[in-house]
């Protein structure tokens, strides 16, 4: 059973340690199928480049999903996400090689709110560039 944190455990300012999530071309193909978002820029290098992108890019929602996973893994199974928002500030370029790319997510407890809710400020980087800004989740803890 996963670790469960409680509202009483949490202190404002606590840092959530960085986690690195890999993203490959296969990740994007799977995400296309699972999400129904088949925009060609996520799987077709020829068209991605023709429309001015450096290469195939990850779905913004794939990146947001990694930030979501970061929050829910930290908060534990009994927590529920109440609010979750991000701004996509840069693209995650996914080269067609054996390494792919990685998304580094970190966070900090931003605020303790009423009703056992806690706001987490999130940061996500790929290739040393911030790919999410104004990223924030509010979770309700037991």
């Amino acid at each position, binding site marked *: *059973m*996963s670790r469960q944190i409680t509202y009483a455990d949490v202190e404002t300012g606590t840092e959530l340690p960085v986690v690195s*999530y*890999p993203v490959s071309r296969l*990740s994007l193909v*799977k*995400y296309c*199928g*699972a*999400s*129904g*978002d088949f*925009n*060609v*820029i996520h799987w077709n290098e020829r*068209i991605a480049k023709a*429309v*001015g992108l450096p290469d195939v*890019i990850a*779905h*913004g*929602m*794939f990146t*947001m*999903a*990694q930030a*979501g*996973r970061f*929050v*829910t*893994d930290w908060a534990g*199974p*009994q927590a*529920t*996400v*109440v*609010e*979750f*928002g*991000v*701004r*996509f500030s840069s*693209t995650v370029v996914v080269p067609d090689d054996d390494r792919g790319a990685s998304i580094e997510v970190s966070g900090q407890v931003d605020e303790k709110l009423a009703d056992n809710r806690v706001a987490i400020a999130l940061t996500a980087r790929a290739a040393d560039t911030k790919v999410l800004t*104004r990223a924030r*989740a509010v979770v309700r803890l037991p």
Partner: protein
Amino acid sequence: MAINRDYVGRVFGVSEPYEVSRVKIAEFADAIGDANPVYRDRAAAQAAGHSDVIAPPTFAIVISMAGSGAALADPGLGLNYAMVVHGEQRFSYSRPITAGDVVTAQVTLTDIRDAGRNVMLTTSTEIKTVAGEHVCTAVSTIVERGA
């Protein structure tokens, strides 16, 4: 082709009911690489206080896109989808999306505005059960990059 500004404020029709299945949730969780048992194992989800397997928070995009995708593909809007990237996304949840839910999505195109050479479109999608219970509101801003 220019974006048709007359679409601001347009409320699109309620989508066909979408039945949330355990299989689809597990497929989505696999695709995002999330091994959390509450997305796959009913007993684990129930131990965490849910009635059945729940979906990852961003699964709501699957349902909201089913509605907003159709809205944004409206030929009268004039959006070039190959030039589209995601600008911003926000979700407000009344509760987790849960296996067995039958939900609909209703999209409102709330804003179209210029940002330099780009055009930003914002939609707000209400996801409710067919019984009318609010589950999630998804607000998406997409960017059509200028050529």
